[in-house]
């Protein structure tokens, strides 16, 4: 197959509109529920001495509004995520969600610079949804169009690329994390170093992330069970990060690497504390929703008796 044909097949393979629509719902509803209690507007009242402006604030000269002014902005931003989940004015909602994420989460990530990596997919995946036709089915927009007698024509080439682009972004994110470990510590020096041991044991002393681990003593217990545990976990982490892009091209790799990465992210949260919720949620872009629905429906269908 020629390179151009391969490129087109990789990005623009026809896909069911339902897959993108369910992904939109799961991701946007999850983001809405996750940030609803976050109270991001309170960053407007934090002492400015802790502020270390990210590039967005530094170069564009964006103002830091006070908490009272940020509260309505945060409310509109959250409503845009809800509207996106429901598929109501979906693309406009996604634009507001993306711009709001850039500003509000950018503000949060300026105390100090770039401290919450899990916020990053919120910006890029909302940008992808802003450019996608994610509400052609299973949405308020589609329902209104049908009621008005103007049903939306479906084009299968429209529904695969946004999910594929999101998956490429996720793959890049993990690959970059693996490369950063090589760049800053060397290979296999990072694996053989004490970094993972410190993260596992340190959570018993102080918060290793922005929240306390649900089981802060578990890491120390695992390390006590075997000195090689931390090294093994470090090796698994770095190899899963570096090999994650293989999931884009191999079904077999997908079935190994994605559950392994989700298990790692879950394990990091349970033992160390850092909670990569939006990153986990972004894995909705991998799920073949319509194939799962077809399988469930087939199982539930009554069997004809001869």
């Amino acid at each position: 197959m020629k390179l151009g044909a391969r490129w087109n097949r990789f990005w623009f393979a026809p896909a069911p509109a339902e897959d993108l629509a369910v992904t939109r719902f799961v991701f946007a509803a999850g983001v809405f529920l996750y940030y609803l209690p976050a109270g991001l507007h309170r960053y407007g009242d934090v002492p400015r001495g802790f502020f270390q402006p990210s590039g967005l604030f530094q170069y564009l000269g964006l103002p830091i509004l006070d908490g009272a002014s940020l509260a309505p902005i945060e409310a509109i931003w959250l409503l845009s995520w809800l509207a996106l989940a429901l598929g109501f004015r979906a693309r406009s909602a996604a634009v507001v969600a993306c711009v709001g994420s850039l500003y509000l989460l950018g503000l949060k990530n300026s105390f100090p610079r770039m401290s919450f990596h899990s916020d990053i997919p919120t910006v890029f995946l909302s940008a992808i949804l802003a450019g996608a036709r994610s509400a052609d089915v299973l949405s308020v927009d589609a329902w209104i169009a049908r009621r008005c007698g103007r049903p939306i024509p479906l084009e299968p080439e429209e529904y695969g690329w946004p999910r594929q682009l999101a998956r490429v972004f996720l793959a890049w994110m993990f690959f970059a994390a693996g490369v950063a470990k090589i760049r800053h510590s060397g290979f296999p020096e990072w694996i053989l170093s004490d970094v993972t041991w410190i993260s596992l044991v340190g959570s018993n002393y102080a918060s290793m992330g922005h929240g306390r681990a649900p089981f802060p003593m578990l890491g120390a217990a695992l390390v006590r069970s075997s000195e090689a545990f931390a090294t093994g976990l470090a090796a698994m982490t770095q190899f899963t990060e570096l090999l994650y892009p293989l999931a884009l091209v191999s079904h077999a790799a997908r079935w190994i690497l994605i559950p392994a990465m989700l298990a790692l992210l879950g394990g990091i949260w349970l033992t160390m504390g850092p909670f990569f919720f939006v990153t986990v949620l972004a894995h909705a872009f991998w799920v073949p929703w319509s194939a799962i629905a077809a399988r469930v429906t087939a199982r539930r269908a009554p069997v004809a008796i001869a």
Partner: protein
Amino acid sequence: MPRALRFYALLAVVVGGEIVSMAVDRSSWPYSTFAMFSYTAPEGRTLQRFVPVGVAKDGSEIPLEPCLRPLTPLQIHQGIAAALQRSDGDLALRGLLRETFDHCAGTDPPLVGVKIHEVTWQLDADLEPPPPKRIEVASYAPVSP
């Protein structure tokens, strides 16, 4: 807008920006090198945190983390570390302490000053963690009129 235009614009913004970020090894929101936990620990199996405390009239020390929310303890630590690393570190730290005092002075009990402790734990996988070493890094008390 045509599909190809939407796709290639997003590809450039999302993936192109991330590639540039990795190539120049520089993070700038929302682009990142995702370098979390990628540095080895030169000090060995230790954990260090900067912790601000308020000083009450009777000299007792009060944790300031609740007053500084939504900042997390890690954000507070990173913010203090970033101020210390600046070329005008002493000045930056003094400004940070003054603002922290102004922000938290009205807490109960009222504060007469604020301090920053550097807390260092020698890590041990045993169940009973040994007590940490505490060093006072900086303090601030407003001059009485």
